[in-house]
């Protein structure tokens, strides 16, 4: 009999459930004829089935049931945590904006602003790539990389994207090609609502070096 080469023994077991099969030797031979590639597994399976069919109906001790449940729940949660951990780097790998990197790191723009001692408006401008790359202090990019858990190169990469409008709607309002305003980091700092002392710190950081290496 020609069968799907991708068929697994689990599939065959499920087919057995779909039909009225008993663990008799006669049925075992029929299934071996259908799936000779699983003859050994089928023989072992039918033998266990035959025994357990006759031993059914026993009450399970509460302690055994509890242990079984705990092992299963713990295993499922472990699998889900591993899956989640794998999904985060994948999200980071696909990220093309600061906002997406934030999300992958479990942050939002406000919390990123707080951690990097910027204000939210400035972080939003960075996210929209409205700050000219050449004037962005390297110290800021280092802070962003550490906070977002990505490499410095990845931060430069997302900051170097084309400047974007605040929303798609804003682009559609004008019949002319949309002009998205950009500014230097220095201009953005001076226009920000940061305390004077913090503004001065950032302005001094410009002297330490700006732009991608």
């Amino acid at each position: 009999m020609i069968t799907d080469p991708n068929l697994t023994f689990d599939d065959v077991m499920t087919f057995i459930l779909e039909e009225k099969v008993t663990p008799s030797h006669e049925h075992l031979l029929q299934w071996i004829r259908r799936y000779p590639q699983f003859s050994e597994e089928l023989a072992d399976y039918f033998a266990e089935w035959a025994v357990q069919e006759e031993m059914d109906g026993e009450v399970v001790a509460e302690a055994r049931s509890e242990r079984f449940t705990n092992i299963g729940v713990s295993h499922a949660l472990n699998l889900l945590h591993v899956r989640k951990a794998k999904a985060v780097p994948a999200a980071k790998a696909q990220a093309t904006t600061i906002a997406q990197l934030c999300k992958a790191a479990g942050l939002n723009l406000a919390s990123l602003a707080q951690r990097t001692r910027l204000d939210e408006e400035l972080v939003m401008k960075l996210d929209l790539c409205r700050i000219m790359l050449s004037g962005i202090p390297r110290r800021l990019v280092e802070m962003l990389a550490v906070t977002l858990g990505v490499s410095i190169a990845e931060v430069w990469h997302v900051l170097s994207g084309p400047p974007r409008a605040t929303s798609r709607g804003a682009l559609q309002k004008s019949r002319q090609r949309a002009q998205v305003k950009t500014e230097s980091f220095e201009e953005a700092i001076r226009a920000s609502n940061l305390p004077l002392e913090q503004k001065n710190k950032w302005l001094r950081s410009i002297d330490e070096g700006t732009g991608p290496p």
Partner: protein
Amino acid sequence: MSVLVTSKLGSLKRPVPLTQRKLSGEPYVRFADVETQITEVIQSPIGEWPRIIFRDTRRWKTQTLVYLARQSIAQEQVFGQLLSEILRRASKVLGHLDKVFDPTTLELIDAELAKTLAALIVIEIPTRTSEYLEIDFKGKVKQLAHKVTAAYKAHPAPNQILISSKHGDRPDPLEAIPSDDTPYSLLAAKTDRGLIRRLLKAVTDDRHRKAFILRKMRDWPMYDEDSTVPSVLRHFGLRPEQRRTVQYWIERAEKQMREAYGEEQ
């Protein structure tokens, strides 16, 4: 596992259909009562599900709980509660293994089964096996048990069971029971399944019990020259000249069952 929580039909949310197909090509379909139960629950937000379910837990089919657990994976607390109930129910199907395996082997089997089942419930890409849990949960769990225990057919070591005989300080049943024709036809004719089960539980060595069941109740040949035909000897990894060993096992099982039968009269 279905990817989306619901697909809408009018304003009523409906369960996502299963994706697999039977051997005949027909698509997998949940039973109507399961679909109705799922539909009832998913009209409420996921956070409400435990309150709905655990108000009267016994009312809900396990297949319903499997669907709901899969849809609540993102909400760990809800998922954990539903999964606990599912696994607790699964464990209740496995009581018979107590009589077949020694405690150490049983712990290994339980752990493997619990992990297998948990993995099937949180599986990312659905398979026939994973989706069948939403059609016939109990049947599938039993199947998984047969599959897992088949790998332990060599357990326990022969002397373990004999040492752990449940006869305590009573005389050896083989000494006590004459080997005459105690009514064995009851077994062969399978007229009283409850009686057969009780008698089989009196057999203290699981290999003796298995040899008896395969040979006497399921008509497995003792040996067949054709290597593609499963036989009792091959199942136990024995050679044709070791036929006498299995015959002894079967005789011993019969004697213990006769003793148990005598005690019931």
